[in-house]
């Protein structure tokens, strides 16, 4: 799950080719991904993992890293 999310984020959102994305990389708080990207990410998660994450759960506190995303996905 982590690898799929990292691949998607790196391919779709990251504009700097040199940026390394790990499960602990801060994505929202660092400005690497924006609100539009989060909508796409929500759609990707629904399509890929069959889980619909409600928007209020997609916050900088709970959805900032790939590891946190996996935790939230597993809750739903």
């Amino acid at each position, binding site marked *: 799950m982590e690898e799929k999310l990292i691949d998607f984020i790196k391919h779709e959102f990251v504009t700097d080719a040199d940026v390394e994305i790990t499960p602990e990389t801060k994505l929202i708080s660092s400005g690497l991904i924006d*609100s539009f990207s989060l909508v796409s990410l929500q*759609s990707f998660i629904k399509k890929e993992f069959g889980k619909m994450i409600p*928007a*209020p759960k997609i916050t900088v506190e709970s959805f900032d890293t790939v590891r946190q995303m996996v935790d939230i996905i597993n809750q739903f």
Partner: protein
Amino acid sequence: MTVCSLGFIWYFDQKAVYVVIGLTLFTYFIAYWMEKGKHAGLAHTIGVLGLLAVLIIFKYLGFLTGTINSLLSFLHALPVFHFEELALPLGISYITFKYISYLTDIRWKIVSGGKLLDFACYGSLFTIFVAGPIERFERLKPQLEAKSEKFKPEYLEIAFQRIVYGLAKKLILADWLGYFINPVWQNPTNYSALIRIAALFGYSFQIYFDFAGYSDIAIGSSRLFGLKIMENFNKPYLAPNISQFWRRWHISLSDWIRDYLFFPLSQGKTNQFWLIFCVPVISMGLCGLWHGAAWHYVIWGIWHGVGISILQCWNLFKRAHKKKIAFVSKPWFKYCSTALTFVYVTAGWWWFR
């Protein structure tokens, strides 16, 4: 706490107490229906439409009839509408948004309905009733339910420090700036273009200190009662782009717009024009309308929506040309981007004021 809050509201606006009690009972009944009944979707729709209807009747009826009548004036044969404008109950914009988030979060199974008294306290909490933050029930509910939570002396220090910061921002910085710039705004033709531009930048800081100061007071006052309320501002004028600005300015409102307008309008859509232009412009236009029943607020919102659309186009361009535009990660570019964002936001305040 609920009784104190209702007493506070009664002191300033007796009619608002009846509105708060009515909305609270209505919303709680809808929540109960959603959780216990079979038609949660229908209940949610009725609840949200009911809350919006109350907001429209009290806040936007005069604005809507005025706009319709202006359009009809082009067609002289048609009659014009006349409605007596109702006085705006205190805190109506905030409580309706809080209650819509409450119902929608129950619909999304993020939170359960809770006890009526806790919910009534959430809706009427006097420290955040008049001007936010638009706190979520999900965050406040555990705090209201934690009966074991006792008052601690350190709350006083944290709370009073925050209140003093807020008062300083409001009474010293915002009011002091207002003393200098208000004469320019009242009689702009008496001043040169340079002075008017300076007054616009002055207003940019005045509105920040005013509102951020108020939020500090609200957060500090809540802390006196052991309640942790969400932050509403985080150095917004240092944001490197307009999207980041809205993650730092009036955070509780921008989160609300994002969660209950922006995401639902975007979900499942693939049309790029809709996603890149229509969704931000509609979301931010409605955000502007929430601030006040006047077209200049809508234009201010659209100004920000267009800014977000431009940013989104730029991001798509960056993604398509990663290697050719490596300069975007340079520090000088980030400084320029921050300055440009500040100027764009400041220009938007002209519409707002």
